[in-house]
C-alpha cells in the first residue's frame, strides 16, 4: 500500500515518557527523506497505531521502545535514526532556572497594588481608560491622582463616592497639580515644606498660592489637587471634603487653604459648615465677584501664620501708553485666566471662552473688544498637549496679533513654571513678543506686554532668570497674577499704573 523503505525495530531497556517520544517522532518525521515516523513505547495501542500506518510490527512488550520509520531510501532511514539518537539524548537548551525570562511587569494598577503597598496611584492613560485604572486603586484601598482628562462626570462621581466609602482620596480627573510630603506630582512648583496645607480644585490657582507663599518664605505641608469640577453642584465637593478632613488631622498642617475656580454656592456652604468644626483654621480662596483675589488670599494666610507679606516681585520696564488700548489676555493657566477676567470686569464687554458669557476661542479671538482666552480649555487641547507644555497655539496667536492689530494693545500673558512645565518658556516667548511689537511698531501702534510669571526661584526654570529674559524685551513681569491683571487693566484704561518697576 505504500512505497518506500520501512525500518522497524524494538529496543530493550530504553524508556522515555510519551511526550518525549511524540517530540522525537515529530523530529524524525521532519527529516528530509523521511515520510512518516512513529517512536513510541510498544504498548498494544501504539503497535496498533504502527500497523494502521502500514508498518509490519513484530511481537513486542510495552517495556520496549518501538521505532518505525518509513523513508524514500536507506539514506533517509539513516538520517532519521541519527536524528532520533540526537533527539533522545538532547537536553533542553534553556538554563533550566526558574526565571521565565519574560517581562511580567503588572499590566494594570490593580495588579501592581497586589504586590505593592504604595499609597498612591498616578494615572495619565488616555481618558476613556483612566477611570478603569482608577477604580482598581480605590478597590485596593489606595489614593489615586488622575491626571487624564476626558473622564465623564458620572465616572468622577462614582469614583469619588467609592473613594469616600473606602477612605481614600480621588484626586481628579484632570488633576494636574499636587505636592505630597514635599514630592511634586504633575505640574507643581518647587516650594519648601511648611505649615500650610492646600486643597485645590484648580491647578494653576494652587501653583499661584504655593509660589507666592514660597516667595514670602512660608512652606507647604501638602497640596492636594481635586480636579476642576470637584466643587461643582454635581460632584458636590466629594473630594474636597475628604482632603480637608485629612489635612485637619495632619499634624504638619497648621492652616488650610481651599482654592477653587468659581464654585457652587451650596457646596461652598456645606464645606464651610464642615470646616467650622475643625481644629485647623481654613481659608477659602474661591474665585468670584466680591471675593478676595488669590494674592489677597495668600496675604491673609501669611497674616494668620504671623508672617509678613512682602511686596511681590516685579521685574522689567514700566509701560506708559498714556491712552486707552484694547486688552488681550492669552492664558495657559485656567484659574489665572479666570482671576484676570474677574479683575478686569469693568472693561466689559470682554470676549472670552471662560465663564457664563463664554464663546468658542476662535470667536473670542476674532472680536473687536477686549479679550481673555484660556488656551488650556478642552476645545484647544484636543489632540495636543496643554499650553504649559506645548506653547505653539498661543505663540501663533501672538504673531497674529502683531500682524493684525489696528491700534494700541495691552498684551497680558501668563507663564507657569515648575515641574512638568516647559524647560525654558522664555526662549520661545521672547522672539514672538519682540516680533509682534516690531510689526505693530512698523504700523505706528504700541504693544505693552504684561507677564504674570507663576513660579519660584527654586523651580527648574528659575523665576528670576525667566523674569529677566522677559523683561529684556520690554515686558513688565509680575509674580502676582492679580497685580499683573490690575496693571494691565490700568494700561488699557489709559491711566498711569500704580505699580512701578524696580
Amino acid at each position, binding site marked *: 500500500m505504500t512505497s518506500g523503505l520501512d525500518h522497524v525495530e524494538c529496543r530493550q531497556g530504553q524508556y522515555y515518557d510519551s*511526550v518525549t517520544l*511524540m*517530540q522525537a*517522532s515529530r523530529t524524525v518525521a521532519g527529516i528530509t527523506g523521511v515520510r*512518516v515516523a*512513529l517512536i513510541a513505547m510498544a504498548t498494544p495501542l*501504539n503497535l*496498533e*497505531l504502527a500497523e*494502521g*500506518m502500514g508498518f509490519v510490527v513484530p511481537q513486542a512488550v510495552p517495556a520496549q521502545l518501538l521505532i518505525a520509520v518509513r523513508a524514500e531510501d536507506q539514506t533517509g532511514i539513516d538520517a532519521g535514526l541519527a536524528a532520533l539518537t540526537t533527539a533522545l539524548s538532547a537536553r533542553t537548551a*534553556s538554563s533550566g532556572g*526558574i*526565571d*521565565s525570562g*519574560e*517581562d*511580567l*511587569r*503588572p*499590566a*494594570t494598577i490593580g*495588579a501592581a497594588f497586589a504586590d505593592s*503597598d*504604595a*499609597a*498612591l*496611584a*498616578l494615572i*495619565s*492613560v488616555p481618558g*476613556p*481608560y483612566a*477611570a*478603569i485604572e482608577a*477604580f*482598581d*486603586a480605590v*478597590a485596593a*484601598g*489606595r*489614593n489615586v491622582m488622575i*491626571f487624564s482628562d476626558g473622564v*465623564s462626570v458620572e465616572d468622577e462621581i*462614582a*469614583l469619588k463616592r467609592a473613594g469616600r466609602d473606602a*477612605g*481614600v482620596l480621588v484626586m481628579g480627573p484632570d488633576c494636574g497639580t499636587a505636592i*505630597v*510630603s514635599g*514630592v*511634586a*506630582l*504633575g505640574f507643581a512648583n518647587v516650594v519648601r515644606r511648611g505649615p500650610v496645607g492646600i486643597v485645590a480644585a484648580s491647578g494653576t490657582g494652587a501653583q499661584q498660592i504655593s509660589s507666592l507663599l514660597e516667595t514670602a518664605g512660608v512652606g507647604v505641608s*501638602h497640596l492636594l489637587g481635586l480636579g476642576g469640577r470637584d466643587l461643582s453642584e454635581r460632584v458636590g465637593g466629594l473630594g474636597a471634603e*475628604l482632603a480637608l*478632613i*485629612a489635612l485637619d*488631622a*495632619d499634624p504638619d498642617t497648621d492652616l488650610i487653604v481651599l482654592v477653587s475656580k468659581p464654585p457652587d454656592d451650596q457646596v461652598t456652604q456645606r464645606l464651610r459648615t464642615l470646616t467650622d468644626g475643625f481644629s485647623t483654621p481654613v481659608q477659602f480662596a474661591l474665585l468670584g465677584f466680591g471675593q478676595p483675589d488669590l494674592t489677597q488670599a495668600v496675604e491673609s494666610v501669611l497674616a494668620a501664620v504671623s508672617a509678613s507679606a512682602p511686596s511681590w516681585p516685579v521685574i522689567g520696564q514700566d509701560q506708559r501708553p498714556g491712552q486707552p488700548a484694547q486688552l488681550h489676555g492669552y492664558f495657559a493657566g485656567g484659574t489665572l485666566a479666570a482671576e484676570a477676567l474677574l479683575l478686569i470686569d469693568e472693561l466689559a464687554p470682554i470676549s472670552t471662552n471662560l465663564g457664563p458669557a463664554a464663546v468658542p476661542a476662535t470667536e473670542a479671538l476674532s472680536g473687536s473688544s477686549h479679550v481673555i482666552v484660556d488656551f488650556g480649555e478642552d476645545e484647544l487641547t484636543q489632540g495636543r498637549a496643554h499650553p504649559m507644555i506645548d506653547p505653539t497655539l498661543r505663540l501663533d496667536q501672538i504673531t497674529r496679533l502683531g500682524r493684525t492689530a489696528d491700534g494700541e494693545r495691552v498684551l497680558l500673558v501668563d507663564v507657569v513654571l515648575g515641574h512638568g512645565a516647559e524647560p525654558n518658556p522664555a526662549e520661545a516667548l521672547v522672539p514672538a513678543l519682540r516680533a509682534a511689537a516690531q510689526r505693530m511698531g512698523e504700523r505706528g501702534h504700541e504693544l505693552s506686554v504684561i507677564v504674570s510669571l507663576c513660579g519660584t526661584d527654586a523651580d527648574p526654570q528659575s523665576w528670576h532668570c525667566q523674569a529677566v529674559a522677559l523683561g529684556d524685551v520690554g515686558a513688565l513681569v509680575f509674580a502676582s497674577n492679580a497685580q499683573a491683571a490690575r496693571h494691565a487693566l490700568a494700561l488699557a484704561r489709559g491711566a498711569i499704573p500704580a505699580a512701578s518697576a524696580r
Partner: protein
Amino acid sequence: MSRPLGALLSAPLSVVTAGVDLFPRALRDQGTAVEVVDWRPPAFGDPADLAALAADPRRVAANRSATERILSAGAELVDVRPAADALGLPRDLFLHAGPPIEFGDASGPLRGALIGAALFEGLATDPDEAVHMLESGRIRLEPCHHHRAVGPMAGVTTASMWVSELRDPINGGTAYCSLNEGLGKVLRYGAYSAEVIDRLRWMGDVLGPVLSAALNRSGPVDIKSILAQMLQMGDEGHNRNRAGSLMFLRDLAPAIADSGVPAVQVAEVLRFIGGNEHFFLNYGMPAAKLALDAARDFPGSSVVVAMARNGTEFGIQTSGTGDAWFTGPALTPDGLFLGGYGPDDANPDIGDSAIMETLGVGGFSMAAAPAIVRFVGGTVPDALATTRRMFAITVAENPAYAIPVLEFRGAPTGIDVLSVARTGILPQINTGMAGRVAGTGQVGAGLVKPPQVCFEKALAALAERARSSSG
C-alpha cells in the same frame, strides 16, 4: 478609618504610575519610589462597557464571594451508579460536552460519540439508524453542564453509563461525571467501533459495580486532597493525571480487592485503572464543577464559572450572568500528534475538561507540570511564564493547590472577564485532540485558548447588567 487616606500624608511617598513616562521620571528625579505599570489599551471591549464594569459597586465584593466559594469547595467521591438513577436521565436524552448544539452542527468526534452512544443504548442497530434518530430529534441533546455534570472530550453521557457522584461537603453541591475509558479508540474521542461499545458494556457490567461496592466499603474518597497532592507530583490535573490516577488506585485498591467480586474481576478492574493514566481526570473534572457551581449567580461578579467546548463552539459562563453562554468558534489546539496524524486531522477544541482551567489547574498550573509544555516544544521557563501570566487574569490564589516551583504560590483562580479584556491575556488550556473524522479517536494533545469573542460577548452582557443595576 483610623488615619484618613491611609499613610498618604504620613509615610514617605511611594507611587504606582500608569501612563506617560514623564511622571515616573519626574518622581525618580525627586528620589521617590515608583513602580511603573506596563500599561496598554485594553485588548477589546467598548471603553464605556469596561468603565461600567469597573464602576459596578457590586463587582469587587461579588468576585470575592464567588472566589471564596471556589476556594472553600470540597469534593468527595461518594458513589458510582448508572446515569439513569443518578441524573434521572431518560434513555432518549443524551448529554454532551460544551454549550448547547444541534446534531446538524456537531463535528466528527461528537457525531461519532453520539452514534456510539445510540448503539450502546440499543436505540439503534447501526450507525445509519443512529444518525437518523439524532437528526430527527428522537434522541434529544443537552449539555452536561445543564445537569450538574461534566464530560471530557465529546462528553457524551447516557442513561446506561455509570457515572461517579461527587459531593461538596462545604457548599452542599453535587456533580457527576462518566468513568474514564482509557486512551486510543474510545467514545469520548468519537470512536464507536465494536471494541468501544464492548468496553462501555464492561464498564457498566464490571467496573461501575466494583467501584460502587468498593466505595461502600471504603467510604468517600477525598478527591480535592488527591488533586492537591498531584500538583506537587508533576501533574497539572488536565493533560497529566499520572500521579493522581495512581493515588486514586492506591486509596481504593484495598476496598476493590475486598469488594466480594471474583478475583478475576478485581484483577481486571485494577489492571484497567492502573493502565489508564487519565483515569483520575474524570474525578478531577466533577471536583472542579462542584467548586465552580458553588460560585454561580453572584450578581455583579465577572468571574468565569464554566469554559466548555462542543467541538464546534467554545462557550463560557460567568457568575454574574446566570445560565447564559457566550460562544465563539472553537479553535484547533497546537501540539504534538500521534503516529502519522497531523494538524489537518485534528478536530477543533472539544470537551468540558476546560473546567480544570476554570478552577485554576490544568494549563493555569502548568508550572507544576513542566513536562506538559513540551507538547508544543516549549521549555520549563515557558511553563512558569504561563502560570505567572494567568495570575494577571485571576482574582485569587488557591492555597489548596500550591505550586512548588513558584515557592508554593497557590494556583491562579477565578478568571475575571474584565482582566482578560484589559490585559488581552486569554486563558491557557491544556487539552487532548480528537480526530476530525467521526470514529477516528485521539490524534494528539496540545495547548489551546478560547476564542476572544466569548469574552467580548460576556463583557458586553456584564456591562449591560451593571448599567441596569445602577440605573
